[in-house]
C-alpha cells in the first residue's frame, strides 16, 4: 500500500482516540530527501508565513572535494520536544505542550519577548516583526492578508495579518505546529503531503501499529542534539 494511504489510515485511527492518548510525531528519511524545498514552500503557503518566518527549512550541506562530492539535506520543522526548553522560559505561560505532544503558542497571550527564540536549540522559532512580502508594491497581495487557521490557542482559531495593524500574530513568536488545523481534520501536514521524495512520515507515536512508530524502531533512527535531553518527537532516518 502507498505510504500516504498508510498514514491516512494511521491518522484516522489516532483521531478516534481521546486527544491525550495521541502522541504526534514525524520521521524524516534524509536519504530520500532530494533538497527540492517543496516542504518549505508548502508550509509557507499553508500557514501564510510572512518574511523572516519559515516554520520549515531545508539545511543544505556540501561534502567532499571535486570530483568526489555530494550534497546532504536536513529538513528542519519544529522538533516538538517532549521536554521543550522554549516552554519553561516563557514568562507568561503563552507557550505550552498540548496533551497530544505538540508545542503551541497562544498568540493572544504571547508578549513577544523572544526568550523562547533564544531557548530553542534548533532555531525553530521565529519572530513575526510585521513584514509583508508585497510591502510597498502598488497592489499588495491579498493572499498575505488572507485568513490562516493555525491552531494557536483554541481549535478553530483564525488569524489575519493586516498591513499596518500590529495585532497577533504580528509581534508574536511563531513556530511549526505540525499543521494541527489539518491534522485534526484528518489531513496530513502540508510538508508531508507535498514531499516529492516521500521522505516525510507523520502519525501517532503512541500507536505501535502506526508507520511512524514502526520507523522509530528501526536502525539508523536519530534525533537532533540528543545530548540536550529535549527528547524531540521529530526523528530522522539516516
Amino acid at each position, binding site marked *: 500500500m502507498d505510504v500516504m494511504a498508510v498514514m491516512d489510515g494511521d491518522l484516522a485511527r489516532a483521531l478516534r482516540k481521546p486527544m491525550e492518548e495521541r502522541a504526534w510525531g514525524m520521521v524524516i528519511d534524509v536519504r530520500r530527501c532530494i533538497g527540492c524545498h517543496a516542504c*518549505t514552500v508548502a508550509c509557507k503557503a499553508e500557514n501564510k508565513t510572512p*518574511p*523572516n*518566518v*519559515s516554520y520549515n*527549512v*531545508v*539545511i*543544505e*550541506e556540501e561534502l567532499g572535494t571535486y570530483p568526489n562530492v555530494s550534497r546532504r539535506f*536536513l529538513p*528542519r520543522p519544529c522538533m516538538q520536544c517532549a521536554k521543550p*526548553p522554549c516552554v*519553561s*522560559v*516563557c*514568562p*507568561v*505561560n503563552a507557550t505550552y505542550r498540548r496533551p497530544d505532544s505538540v508545542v503551541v503558542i497562544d498568540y493572544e*497571550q*504571547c*508578549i*513577544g*519577548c*523572544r*526568550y523562547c*527564540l*533564544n*531557548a*530553542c*536549540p*534548533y*532555531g525553530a*522559532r*521565529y*519572530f*513575526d*516583526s*510585521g*513584514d509583508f512580502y508585497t*510591502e510597498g508594491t502598488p497592489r499588495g497581495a491579498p493572499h498575505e492578508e488572507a485568513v490562516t487557521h493555525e491552531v494557536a490557542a483554541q481549535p478553530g482559531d483564525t488569524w489575519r495579518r493586516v498591513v499596518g495593524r*500590529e495585532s*497577533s500574530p*504580528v*509581534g*508574536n*513568536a511563531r513556530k511549526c505546529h505540525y499543521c494541527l488545523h489539518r491534522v485534526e481534520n484528518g489531513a496530513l501536514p502540508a510538508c508531508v503531503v507535498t514531499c516529492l521524495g516521500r521522505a516525510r512520515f507523520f502519525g501517532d507515536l503512541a500507536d505501535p501499529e502506526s508507520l511512524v512508530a514502526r520507523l522509530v524502531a528501526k536502525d539508523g533512527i536519530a534525533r*537532533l542534539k540528543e545530548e*540536550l535531553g529535549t527528547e524531540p518527537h521529530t526523528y530522522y532516518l539516516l
Partner: protein
Amino acid sequence: MRRRLWIALALGLLFGLGGLAGLIDRFGNGHINANYGSGVPWALWVVFYIYFIGLSAGAFLISSLVYVFGVRRFERVGRLAVFTALICLITALSFIWLDLGHMFRAYRTILNPNFRSPMAWMIWLYSGYFLILLGEGWFLMRRDFAAMRAQGGVRGRLLGVLAFGTRPDTGQGQARDLRVVRVLGTIGVPLAVAFHGGVGALFAVLASRPYWNTGLFPVMFLISALASGGALLTAITQLLFNRDGSFDDEVRSLGRLVLLLLFVDVIMEIAEILISLYPSSPAHRAPFEEQMFGPYWWTFWILGLGMALVGPSIGLFVARRSPRWIGLLSLVAVIGFVGVRWNIVLPGYANELIPGLNMAYAETKLSLAYSPANMEWLVVSGAIGAALVFFVAGAWLFPLLGREQGKKVEDTLSTAGLADLAVKEVE
C-alpha cells in the same frame, strides 16, 4: 541650577529630540524597521537594557553601603545613589518594554507569571525593587521636602505635595526615618543581588547557546554591575556636583572602590576568556573569536577592554589622588561598559544552532549578521536623552545632596540621623 546641570539638560534634550523620530517609527511601524528578529532575537535594546539595569543595581548597592552597612564615607552621596538607581531602572525597563512584540501585554508578566521562567522572576523582583527605591528615596528626603515647602516657589510647592503631610522634624523623626530606610535597604540588597544575578541567570540557563550557558555569568553580572554603577556614581558626583572641591574625599573613595571592582571584573573576564578560548570546544571559542576579530572587534578591544576595564584600572591607580581625573576616567568607563554589554548579548549568536541553518532560507532578518538599524539607534538616543532630562529635573527638584541653604550644602540631616542611630545601637 548649576551650569553643569544645564549642560546635562541640553545634552538630554538634544539626544531626546534627536531620538524622537525613532520612537515615532517604533510606535508607528512596530518592529518592521528594526534589524533584530528571527536570526538575532535580542540585540541593541537588550544590550542597553542590561547596561542600565547594571548601572542601577551598582548604584543601589553602593547606597546600601551607607544605609545598610553604615559606611559613613559615602553618606553624602547616598541619596544621589538611590536616585541614580531609580532613573537607571526606569530607563532599563523602557528599553525592554520597547523591545517587546506586544508592549501593552507587559502586565501579563505580573498577572499570569510562569515562575519557571527567569524572566518572570525578573519582573517581580524589579517591581519590588522599584517600590524599595521609591520608599527609600521618600523616607530619606521627606523631612527636607516638608522643610523646603516653606521656601515657596514651584519647587517648594511640588516638594510640599510630595511630602504627603510630613512635618519638618529634627533628631527623633529623622532617626526613625533612617531606620525605615535601613529596613528597606536591607530588603533591597538581596533583591538587587537576586535580580541582577538573575539577569545573568536569564542568559545562563539557555543550554542552546554555549556562550551564555556558564555558571560564571550571574557572578560576572553582579561584579560588573557594581563596577559600572560605581563608576557612574563617581562620574556624576565629580562632574555634576563637585564644583568647589567639597566632594573630593567622596570622589577619591569612590574611585578606589571602582578600581577594586574593575580589578575583580578583569579577573572574571580573563577566566571566562581563557577557558573559552581553549581549543577543545569550537562552540565556546567561536563567540570569542567573533567579538575579538569580527566586524565589531572595536566593541571588545576599544570600548570593553580599553575604555571600561584596563584603561580606567590603570588610570584610576595612577591618578588616584586627582578627583578631576577620577571623574573623567569613571565617565570613560561608564561609556566603555556599553561595549562590555554588547559583548554579553551579541556573541551569543556567533554560532549557528545547526550549521547552515541561517543560510537555509535567505531573508535579511534570518541572517546572523546583525548591525543595528537607524531606528534602533534613534530609540537609544531618545531613551538616554529622556533619562538625562529626568535626572536633571530630579537633581533640580530633590535635595539630593542634603538641604541647600544659600550656597552651602547642609547635610546635617543625614549625619545627625545616622549618628543618632549609631548612638542608639551602642546603647
